[in-house]
């Protein structure tokens, strides 16, 4: 009995390690569990994060920036908005000054992002797939980046 239990634990641990070590990291686009958003093109996504109004079902999409992880921020800048950090900040600053529109809300705590996504059905954000799968009340829309 004990040997069976040990063997099962060993197999479970190895499987977990395989998951942690062997699985490639992915960044995914997420929204609230009850959100009607099914998909967004890369251009729509860029527009949204550049502060330009993007509508989905005639509702304005609210983009949330995830600054809880520096590597995640770098992937976001490179893959999603495709600018340098300074260029992105300048763009947002310019947008605020010219149009008076608010810049995308920024969160340093991932739990806050999850709460915001649950609260606002048309809110979108990005996070590690592993975090997205653990979080409750949100869903993955699409893959944004995958580790090679």
């Amino acid at each position, binding site marked *: 009995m004990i040997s069976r239990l040990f063997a099962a634990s060993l197999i479970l641990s190895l499987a977990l390690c395989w998951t942690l070590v062997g699985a490639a990291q992915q960044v995914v686009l997420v929204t609230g569990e009850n959100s009607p958003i099914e998909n967004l093109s890369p251009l729509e996504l860029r527009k949204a994060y550049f502060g330009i109004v993007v509508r989905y079902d005639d509702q304005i999409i609210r983009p949330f920036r995830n600054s809880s992880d520096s590597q995640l921020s770098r992937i976001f800048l*490179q893959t999603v908005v*495709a600018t*340098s950090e300074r260029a992105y900040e300048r763009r947002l600053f310019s947008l605020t000054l010219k149009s008076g529109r608010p810049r995308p809300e920024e969160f340093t705590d991932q739990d806050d992002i999850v709460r915001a996504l649950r609260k606002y059905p048309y809110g979108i954000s990005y996070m590690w797939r592993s975090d997205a799968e653990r979080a409750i009340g949100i869903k993955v829309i699409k893959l944004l980046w995958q580790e*090679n």
Partner: protein
Amino acid sequence: MAGKLRTLRTRLIVVALAVHAMLLPALFYGVTFIVENSHRDIFVNDVRTHSRFLADILSSQQILDSSEDIIAWLDWLDSVFLGSNGVYAEVQNGEQRFFSTLMDEAYLDKFQEDFRFGDHGDDVYYLSMPLDMPGHQANLRLGFDESLILEEIRQTRMRTIYGLSAYLVISLLLLMLLAVRLTRPLRTLQRDSRAIASGDYDTRLSVTTKVREFRELAKDLDLMRDALVGINERLREEHAEHLATEQQRQTLQKQLHHAQRLETVGTLAGGIAHEFNNILVPIILYTDLALEDLPQESPIRDNLERVTKSANRAKEVIDQILTFSRKTVDQRQKSSDIVSIIKETLTLVRALMPATIDIQTNIDEKCGRVLVDATEVQQLIMNLCSNAFQAMTEKGGRLTIDVCDVAIDGESNDISLRLEPGHYVRISVGDNGKGIDAATQERIFEPFFTTREVGKGTGLGLSVVHGIVISHGGDITVDSTPGRGSTFYVYLPKTTLLSELPVPHG
């Protein structure tokens, strides 16, 4: 060395060097930091935008099903190498991998995704963009050469170094020029101040500079110089005045002592002479009476005549002493033409003087009249000429007699003269004999004072002269240099005749 380090010029340069040593490295690192970050940011922004743009285009091509599609894709991948510094272009679609035909094979399998400039140190910025194609796990993978940017950064860094070095050299040269221009007027002021301090009061403190503060400083210092020179001059004048006053005081004190001594001696001698005179009068009188009673053949007559002769001689001496000690104006004095009296006396003097004595006279004929006893004046001149002759006995010489009119105003004349302001006749009797030393001059008018051998003089000559001059309301001084001769100056007050008085108007 330490002194040179403390100069303004050196200090300015040292301070400037220290400031530059602190600021220039910071400036260099600040400039290069900004430039490097700017270059890197622009590069990263460009390659990301370019990649995203290409990924969007490729995503719009949808699916890779035919060979025409693949050719079109490869054309797009080739564009990476044409328009920018691309070195790597690949599309990964599941297990399929399509590379640009322009890509160097050396870059195959070198892909390591970067998120920052310079990651992995391979001089290539690799990035991956997922392609938005439903049902496909496709990625666009691109690589861009970082070395061009690194070279540009290096060149910028070198240009910054050259620029800052040039700035340092130029600023130091300008600073040295400024230091020279600043210190030059200070040196000029220092040189002129030292000249003034060493006694050159004619030096003016002025500088030729455009710096207003220095010009004002020089002006203020020059004003101070004027004030100091004025104070110095005043102090010098006061000091000279003080010295003159002190000298005058000492001279007057000496004269007072001399006069007091002469007065004391005169009083004493006069008293003794008077007593002796009282004794001599009966001796002479009774001796004369005895001679009248004696027959001519009497052997006693000869002795009595010798008594009379000696007594008369003693009376002459006593008369001389009384002349010296006399203080009141003699009743025999009357207004006389002094020139005539002097000329008469000089006739006698010329007759008595040997040929070795050259007599020179310079007599102002219009000297006017003096209230004098003519006999005493003759005696005065005879005594002075006799003394002059005595001084020139050995080698002969020149006897000068000058007579002139002088005005005593009490200020500009010899302070040793004890005379009231007014007009005087000055009789100068000079010789170029052996002269009189200072100690002898002190006592020369004292009775019985003589420098001659015992028996060769009574020592009464000059004391009689002194007495005559004083009794005439005048004064006598002597100016003598041992070895060069002496000159006696006799001052006698002039008289004014009624006919010479100005006629009152009205």
